[in-house]
């Protein structure tokens, strides 16, 4: 009897301990590196970080990128999921095409968009050949930071809208047809049905997609590094730069802690909104 009640805990323990270690140890290590100097408590590293122009710029850019990318891609994914939830010819093919970016990494996506938008890239050659411009439009280079920002947004929307789309489509398919048919019988038109039935029932899917994407946006790195380097500094990129180029472990740790802090804040929102509605034991 005693053994039986311990079994589920014993089964979970290894995974749980592993995760705790990989979150706990680095956290302690980061706090140590960030707030001590020669073994004594010190705010020297913090001062060094916040006095750097790149820190505030990185914080601002990371939040700005998330604020621009996430709402656009969630709205786009909802519209696309609603369109593709209908039965029509070629639906499977269209869904397949939309899901393709799901497995493309941000580095690859950055390189792909570079081939579209570089001075001798597809878009510029195309525009010049149909006579819309006579000179290539430059999207890259430190004097075009706003454009680089725009290209990063474009690349991220292209790549990671797929995951939001899949989550929302899955949510849509779980909505019972009975509600919609009942509403139709009582004369509700498409917009009413959408507003009163579909969107409220889709809320959990939208919320979880929203917050998952926001959290990942806090860690945005590869695509920025490929397309803009440090022209558009972001938190993860600066942490990477401090560690790999400057070898300043303390400052790099502070960048890690800032991202962790932002994520924790958003993670609390996530747990609060999503709760554990799934994964119930079927009894």
């Amino acid at each position, binding site marked *: 009897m005693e053994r039986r009640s311990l*079994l589920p805990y014993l*089964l979970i323990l290894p*995974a*749980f301990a*592993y995760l705790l270690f*990989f*979150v706990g*140890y*680095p*956290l302690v290590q*980061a706090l140590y590196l960030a707030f001590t100097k020669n073994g004594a408590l010190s705010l020297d590293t913090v001062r060094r970080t916040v006095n750097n122009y790149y820190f505030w710029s990185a914080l601002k850019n990371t939040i700005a990128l998330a604020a621009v990318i996430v709402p656009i891609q969630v709205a786009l994914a909802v519209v696309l999921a609603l369109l593709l939830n209908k039965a029509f010819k070629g639906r499977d093919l269209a869904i397949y*095409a939309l*899901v*393709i*970016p799901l497995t*493309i*990494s*941000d*580095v*690859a996506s950055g*390189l*792909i*968009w*570079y*081939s*579209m938008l*570089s001075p*001798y*890239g*597809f878009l510029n*050659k195309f525009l*010049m050949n149909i006579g819309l411009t006579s000179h290539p439009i430059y999207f*890259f280079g430190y004097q075009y930071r706003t454009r680089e920002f725009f290209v990063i947004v474009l690349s991220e929307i292209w790549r990671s809208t797929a*995951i939001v789309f899949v989550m929302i489509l899955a*949510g849509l398919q779980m909505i019972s047809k009975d509600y919609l048919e009942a509403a139709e019988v009582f004369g509700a038109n498409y917009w009413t049905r959408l507003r009163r039935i579909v969107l409220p029932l889709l809320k959990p*899917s939208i919320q979880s997609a929203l917050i*998952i994407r926001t959290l990942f946006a806090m*860690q945005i790195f*590869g695509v920025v*590094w490929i397309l803009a380097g*440090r022209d558009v500094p972001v938190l*993860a990129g600066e942490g*990477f*730069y401090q*560690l*790999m180029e400057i070898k300043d472990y303390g400052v*790099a740790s502070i*960048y*890690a802690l800032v*991202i*962790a802090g932002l*994520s924790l804040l*958003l993670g609390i929102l996530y*747990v609060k909104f999503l709760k*554990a509605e*799934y*994964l*119930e*034991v079927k*009894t």
Partner: protein
Amino acid sequence: MNDETKYALKKVGFYTVIFVVVIWIILPLIVAFLYGFTTKADYYDPNKVIPHHFTTEYVKTLLFTLGAWDGIKNSVIVATLTIIISFILGIPAGYSIAKFIFPGKDTIKLSIVALRMFPIPIMTIPLVVLYIRLHLADTLLGVALAHTAMALPFVVLITSSIFAGVSKEYEEAAMVFGLTRFGSFLRITLPLALPGLAAAAMFTFVMSWNEVFVASVLTLTHRTLPAQILSIMAGSSGGAAPDYYKFAAAFIMTLPSMIFIFFARKYLVTMWGITLK
């Protein structure tokens, strides 16, 4: 305007939107693949939107001279190790959540969700110090251990929903006929859950294959493909390699994902359906 034309117009509009979206996704891929094999002369000729001359030179240079092939090998090793370690740890936990009711279960589940949200990639920076001490720095095992931390919460959640989908009655029947709980798990539940587990393994593979931050920070000489490409392409401040190498790199990085998604396309949608149930 009568109803019939209205309906036809609506239909045309609908298909136009779908078409535009599909082109928006597909065109960059086609262009990247095409330009990956374009000769230098064709690429720099402003009149050739679609190149006429092709070469495999840049892809080959990238693969064999600049080390992308080693990167591919390293990526496969890291991803395989990640699957093995995260499944050894994750399957018992997933099974436990799916099949037992015990005090504190909700808290544990919530903690796993919360840990999944924690940015493991970022925690890698402090991890470097530990790895140097443990002689794990610049090893593939080190990267795999960090990737496991990233993939494990996902494996636990997905395996538990797969196991929850296997009906309890089968296992109970097996136990009535004299199998132990472990025996019935091995003989009954595991085989029934296998397709779902395979899909989860594929997803874990892709997660590890695409991950660039952890791999870049933790390794220097044994880099996975994305980390290798990142260091060739961008250096420390961006924009180092000539354009045609970038296109070749885009091709090399994307091809395996395309092949993968072709095989896994059915599972990808259903899997997310399961996790969000």
